[in-house]
């Protein structure tokens, strides 16, 4: 899969933020949204850029630490669950 991500980047509370566009390829439908972000971060570090900071911990939808706001919705498209950004992309995380 190839994806275009628009990610809100903001250094800290004293700086202005902006939406940054990233194109990533070689994304497997078995990856979770968080694993896709890992791939992006590895690329950014290799290019000498700062990786995207995001909260996550258990990565199985239980702890509630992950807090990404995806396509206008907290945690992504499914309501009432923290699980959808931990599950495989092929399960419709982005739909």
């Amino acid at each position: 899969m190839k994806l275009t991500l628009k990610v809100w980047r903001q250094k800290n509370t004293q700086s202005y933020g902006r939406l940054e566009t990233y194109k990533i390829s070689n994304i497997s439908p078995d990856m979770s949204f968080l694993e896709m972000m890992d791939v992006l971060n590895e690329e950014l570090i290799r290019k000498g850029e700062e990786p995207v900071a995001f909260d996550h911990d258990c990565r199985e939808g239980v702890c509630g630490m992950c807090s990404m706001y995806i396509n206008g919705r907290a945690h992504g498209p499914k309501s009432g669950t923290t699980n959808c950004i931990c599950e495989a992309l092929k399960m419709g995380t982005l739909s």
Partner: protein
Amino acid sequence: MKLDAKIPSGSISEKWSKHKFNLKLVNPANKRKFEIIVVGSGLAGASAAATLAELGYKVKCFCFQDSPRRAHSIAAQGGINAAKNYPNDGDSVYRLFYDTIKGGDYRAREANVHRLAEVSVNIIDQCVAQGVPFAREYGGHLDNRSFGGAQVSRTFYSRGMTGQQLLLGAYSALSRQIGLGNVQMFSRTEMLDVVLVEGQTRGIITRNLVTGAIERHAAHAVCLATGGYGNVFYLSTNARGSNVTATWRAHKKGALFGNPCFTQIHPTCIPVSGDHQSKLTLMSESLRNDGRVWVPKTKGDNRRPEDIPEAERDYYLERIYPSFGNLVPRDVASRKAKEMCDAGRGVGASGLAVFLDFGEAINRLGEKAVKQKYGNLFDMYQQITGENPYKTPMRIYPAVHYTMGGLWVDYNLMTTIPGLYALGEANFSDHGANRLGASALMQGLADGYFVIPYTIGDYLASSNLPIVKTDHPAFVEAENQVKDRIHKLLSIKGKLTVNEIHRQLGKIMWDYCGMARSAEGLTHARKLIQDLKQDFWTNVNVPGSDADLNQALEHAGRLADFLELGELMVVDALERNESCGGHFRTEYQTPENEALRDDDNYCYVAAWEYQGDNQPEVLHKEALVFENVKLTQRSYK
């Protein structure tokens, strides 16, 4: 150094009550003069912090997550053991004690394990009083189910989310104390060192993960409840943030590390799907109450499981272990799954999986009843794999799950540094070489609610603890060391990412120090880890600065500690020339391929003492004395 476990005298069933009476007390008015630091807010940390504050001590509690309720105890699924004998099926405190000693393959301390079994019954009462919604039977009594290594049903549960419910109970108790001002809570804060003054633990150094500020905190005693170190394998069922840093820094300050090579590989996890994988998800052991494990009888049979007739399936656990069947302990179940896959009978695309089949249970109980018991686990499986386990068997494979090793502690849970305690998975104490299912929650809560509140008072009442402020030179020195290390990590600016190196470490540990170990492999692994450590310190690239949120820096600091721990695990595994529980040395096995212990030479706790950077650690042995349980070849046949 002479290790003194401080095991009380007397018969096994009287030790704890007598000991509690003999412990010195701190009078209520004096308790508020003592400050106690608790690092970690999972079941052990939250229960300890809440209880110590309730007693009147001034408590500071720390966690790296945004809230104490995120701690990884929350992900525990199947349940918590207690010797209540509600089903009247023959359970007792003694039987829980016996099962735990045997399950741990006779490498745990009798006195600690008996105490654990004794207080297990109090834990259930405590949690029910807090409102934890344990599953109940139709008549209203608390329900029990079975877990591995036991022939009675003694596991209390809340569907497949028992850890979450227990943690919410402990978190509520903690929150109440935070609200009352008795606990000061520091979230998004990581402990980076302990501070010793005149040989006593007098505080910690922390980093505020949002602002990067390095801070000093003084106290009269410190409790580490920081969990296990399964993430040394990179892939594990642990949360991504789980790490060894707090206990490893304590180790480098003088706390001995017990049985580092004793790690638990859990038999039923969702198999790895590719190189991108960042963590592994557990499918609770409770599923083995109704799920049947099998592989095709013929090598390379890649028909769909529904198309393989009964006669061509090998329910190998039921075949090899008729009396325990699918509920053999975890180490045994994992090893057999590996044997099946090594013999070419594994299933799925990678061949590294076995089936866990609910077909029979669904026919017997109906889909609705199965859903009631395991619904959330089935949903989780479907979300991750895209397959429906009501229609087709789950595919599962072993994964790193828990570490029995940890900081060496005496009967009072104190490490070899006065005033420094280790609770829950962070200590080595109760599970020997293999932990039984549903015993981690029990131990975490036993340590926090029922052990440390008694034992810490004895230390505070009997020690000379002069006033120490955070401007003491020991704090200044510890803070400078922490800062130097952070600057070093940021200054390397090499070519490798932290994640890449962590993956490599994980692969070395899994290949050579995982389910099967050999002297040759371990020796090779040691060299590989040393080289990788060299690579890390010369060629890692940690971007960003130390003055704000920097997750790569956090990860780098934790990985640096995992690299050192990994080498010690390999050394420990190499030194233990026997197989026991989860430690399986291929050179030492019975004719039936079971773990072959050597009680004459290895019936001890290996406690390692740090000697300085790149120096070999020194081994101390605590002999294990069995006065109640007879050592036998563990059999589940």
